[in-house]
């Protein structure tokens, strides 16, 4: 009523105003309003037409970028070997990603930006800078690494001239070298070959950089290679008998010394005293219950000869010297932050960057110590030790097969089951109980650790500075810290088919370009911690853990699809960095609790495991009802559209409606899986299984 009276009043006022005013006044007022309207209209059109190019950011210090393309090992090694090496680098500012991304090697950017999800996660590059070698006195080292007299500056990527197909290299392979001027690029080609091209041609060039898919495709080859290596080494077990322990009153060491090279020393049933040393290539073969017992001091079997084999014996009486608290205590593992905790400085005069690591991780006593001896076999052997089991130093092509290492019940007092220091080989069908780490590796690129069982250690498999390893089909449980721990930023590791249970953190994987697939992680405190970038995580079963997967790597470059998240208290409790999209080619992961309509393969409603409501869907009554509120449903719609600009989180825009590993759930009689693929839709097997 009040309103109506007011309205009538305003009508009277209006009449008064209109009759009082002269028509010219009216016109000018109206003109003014129209003028304002025109200005507003013009302004709004300008708002849309004008190109409001934001100020182009200047290059930043490379240390301040989130850098990829070089392993920590290479970084440390290069720092160590030459201060003048300046690898070609690139820094890219993306339209929707707040951090500047640094690339070692222009080619690593070229391959990264071809990834179909690259632009979705980062937006497009607004400006990119590359290393400028013009007038910096560039020359190549013997390995093809670029060295400069003056430290190079930066130049915008689209203004530079590039030399491709020259002799220049980074530790990862061939590299593209950028220059400010065409002349200096030409001058470089005269000395080191190659062709000069411009930016567009660089983007089109067919550079090849190994990535996670390379790891996936070479899995079978890697296995075959390991098989061949094992077959070759196993032949050592069949050498003709050259000496028998006990004959003519010989001791074990006497028999070894007496046996000609490439023969077998037979170790009969009974206990034989150690320690012993094998300095020429023979095979030690036990029969019956043959035991070698040390005196409780030092290492029991020391091998310094290539192609030595130890088969079918039991070894005990190992001294209890271990490197001690530097290794066992929770030190700062420099997994992803520069030099980290392993840079202990040079304590023993050896000036190699990793000298201290040998002392810390491969020191102390062991049952078997193998040093600079290629192609050694340790098989069918049972070890009891309070220190290390087998320590392999600088001895490639070793095989450890069907070995049981019973370590110290308290891992703080024990040491590694197998420690492979700069030694590539195969560790298979072995059992590691107690002690520090089941298998520890240092710079053992390409090592294979498969089909082992590991119980109650600190860690099952611990990779440091080790790239291209294959960790397959291991059964790991009861680890105090971590089932499989890949640290110090390596590349190209394959972690497949492992079953890890009742462990603090089942898998913690760092580095880049790695492949983590078909693992079953159950009943752990944390299923997986992702520190790696540019890696593929697929078909893993992550069930009944307190926390499913944590993701820490800053760059959202991983492909995480077709994993099954079931029965975890929280599927993805923590995520740092920007919003990640865990969907690739229209398919994501299976999330217990995800809701929405489906087309028979995927659910149309995005699932955000880090969201307070979605994250509760599978365990809190009522979350389902709340999640379907129009207000929240509407929000879910566009949430994945600018992920690079959103903080912490994971979104799956095409959750699977049934588990990718349905067979696993059936085999284990899991009834808590409710595929929500509707009848009428196709069954999922045909749709998204290779």
């Amino acid at each position, binding site marked *: 009523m009040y309103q109506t009276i007011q309205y009538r009043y305003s009508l009277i006022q209006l009449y008064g105003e209109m*009759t009082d005013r002269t*028509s010219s006044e009216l016109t000018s007022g*109206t003109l003014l309003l129209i003028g304002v309207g025109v200005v507003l209209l013009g302004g709004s059109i300008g708002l849309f037409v004008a190109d409001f190019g934001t100020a182009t950011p200047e290059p930043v210090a490379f240390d301040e970028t989130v850098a990829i393309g070089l392993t920590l090992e290479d970084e440390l090694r290069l720092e160590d070997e030459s201060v003048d090496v300046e690898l070609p680098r690139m820094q890219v500012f993306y339209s929707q990603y707040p951090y*500047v991304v640094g690339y070692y090697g222009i080619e690593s950017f070229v391959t990264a930006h071809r990834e179909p999800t690259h*632009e979705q996660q980062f*937006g497009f590059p607004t400006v990119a800078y590359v290393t400028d070698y013009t007038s910096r006195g560039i020359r190549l080292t013997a390995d093809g690494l670029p060295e400069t007299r003056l430290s190079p500056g930066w130049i915008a990527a689209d203004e530079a001239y590039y030399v491709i197909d020259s002799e220049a290299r980074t530790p990862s392979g061939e590299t593209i070298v950028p220059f400010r001027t065409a002349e200096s690029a030409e001058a470089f080609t005269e000395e080191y070959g190659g062709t000069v091209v411009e930016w567009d041609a660089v983007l089109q060039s067919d550079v090849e950089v190994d990535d996670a898919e390379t790891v996936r495709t070479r899995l079978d080859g890697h296995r075959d290679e390991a098989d061949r290596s094992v077959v070759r080494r196993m032949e050592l077990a069949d050498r003709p008998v050259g000496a028998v322990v006990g004959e003519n009153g010989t001791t074990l060491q006497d028999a070894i010394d007496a046996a000609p090279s490439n023969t077998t020393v037979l170790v009969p049933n009974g206990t034989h005293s150690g320690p012993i040393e094998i300095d020429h290539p023979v095979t030690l073969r036990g029969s019956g219950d043959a035991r070698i017992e040390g005196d409780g001091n030092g290492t029991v079997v020391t091998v310094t000869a290539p192609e030595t084999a130890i088969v079918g014996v039991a070894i005990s009486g190992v001294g209890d010297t271990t490197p001690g608290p530097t290794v066992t205590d929770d030190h700062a593992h420099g997994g992803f932050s520069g030099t980290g905790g392993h840079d202990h400085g040079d304590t023993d005069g050896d000036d190699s960057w990793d000298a201290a690591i040998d002392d810390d991780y491969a020191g102390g006593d062991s049952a078997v110590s193998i040093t600079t001896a290629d192609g050694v076999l340790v098989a069918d052997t049972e070890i009891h030790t309070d220190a290390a089991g087998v320590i392999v130093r600088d001895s490639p092509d070793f095989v450890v097969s069907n070995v049981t290492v019973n370590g110290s019940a308290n891992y703080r007092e024990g040491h590694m089951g197998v420690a492979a220091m700069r030694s590539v080989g195969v560790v298979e069908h072995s059992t590691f109980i107690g002690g520090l780490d089941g298998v520890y590796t240092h710079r053992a690129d390409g090592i294979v650790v498969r089909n082992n069982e590991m119980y109650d250690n600190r860690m099952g498999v611990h990779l440091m500075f080790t790239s291209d390893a294959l960790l397959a089909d291991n059964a790991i449980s009861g680890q105090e810290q971590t089932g499989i721990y890949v640290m110090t930023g390596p590349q190209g590791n394959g972690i497949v088919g492992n079953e890890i249970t009742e462990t603090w953190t089942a898998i913690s994987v760092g580095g880049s370009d790695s492949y983590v697939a078909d693992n079953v992680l159950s009943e752990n405190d944390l299923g997986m911690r992702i520190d790696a970038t540019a890696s593929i995580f697929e078909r893993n079963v992550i069930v009944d853990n307190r926390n499913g997967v944590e993701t820490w790597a800053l760059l959202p470059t991983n492909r995480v699809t077709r994993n099954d998240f079931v029965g975890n208290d929280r599927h993805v409790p923590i995520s740092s960095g920007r919003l990640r999209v865990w969907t690739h080619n229209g398919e994501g992961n299976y999330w217990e609790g995800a809701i929405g309509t489906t087309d028979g393969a995927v659910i149309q409603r995005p699932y955000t495991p880090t969201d307070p409501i979605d994250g509760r869907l599978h365990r809190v009554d009522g979350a389902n009802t709340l999640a379907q509120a129009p*207000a*929240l449903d509407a929000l879910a719609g566009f*949430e994945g559209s*600018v992920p690079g600009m959103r903080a912490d989180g994971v979104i799956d825009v095409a959750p699977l409606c049934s588990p990718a590993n349905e067979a696993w759930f059936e085999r284990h009689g899991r009834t808590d899986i409710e595929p929500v693929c509707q009848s009428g839709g196709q069954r999922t097997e045909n749709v998204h299984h290779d």
Partner: protein
Amino acid sequence: MSRFRGFGVVAWRELLTVVRTRSYLLLSAGLLLVFVGVLRVAGGIGGGYVPTAVDLLLPLELLVPLVAVALGYRAFSGENDDRPVLRTYPLSKSALVAGVFAGRFVGLAGIVGGPLVAVGLAVSQIGGPESRVFAVHHGVDSPILFVRFIALTLCFGAVVLAMAMAVSVLVRNSRAALAAALAVLVAVVAGGDLVALLGLSAGSISDDLLGTVLAVGPNAAYRGLVLESVVGVVTDRSNAINVPAAVFGLGGWLGVSLLIVWFGLDRRPALLLQNALDRARSLGLRRRLWARLRRRG
């Protein structure tokens, strides 16, 4: 200039009406609350202007028509139907239509734009990500993109306002006006998209035409323009909609609605219809009365 005689005064009066109605202020405060709630849940506000716009896009698609209908549906109907009086003033029809529209639009701009500007200011204060270790930049995020978003939102509001006014001029009775306005609301919020969806699944809209057909619905045009000119700037992905068609679509709805207001101001098609219905009803009543009387007799 006589055609626009009185435009300013009418516009001012309409604006005053909006300003004096306290519940509109409440409406604006309510919107701000909704925005804050939405942004808290979705988290876009910490990311910058574009994620904020993305988070607000769908809520605004629902709320802007609501506000526009609330402001427009009684412009010329019910208690406010003072057209007979106004037409006696020295006031041209165009000035009346334009004035009422402009005044109410400025009101709408305040009600919807105010909270949006507040959100924009909040984004500028909260800022983007920070890091002590890494260099940080804002990408192509910019307040200008948010201003674009506000401008597009207000354009969308203007279109629905004009549509609501057109309905109010056609329907005199205030209850009928409310029903008709709600019909407009439903049509705007869901109608266009559903028709496009039906057309697409029936095969009558070919795939390459979808971007153009979508532009016919005001809300799809609005959504498409935001995706194109705000979000698309950051993602570099365009083709959300046929832009000229969307601009033409929004402009078309605005123009046609205002024309309906202009033409309907003196004529009363709905009133005629109403009278016809009333007559028919009373006829039916009389017939039933006769029938009853006859039975008694």
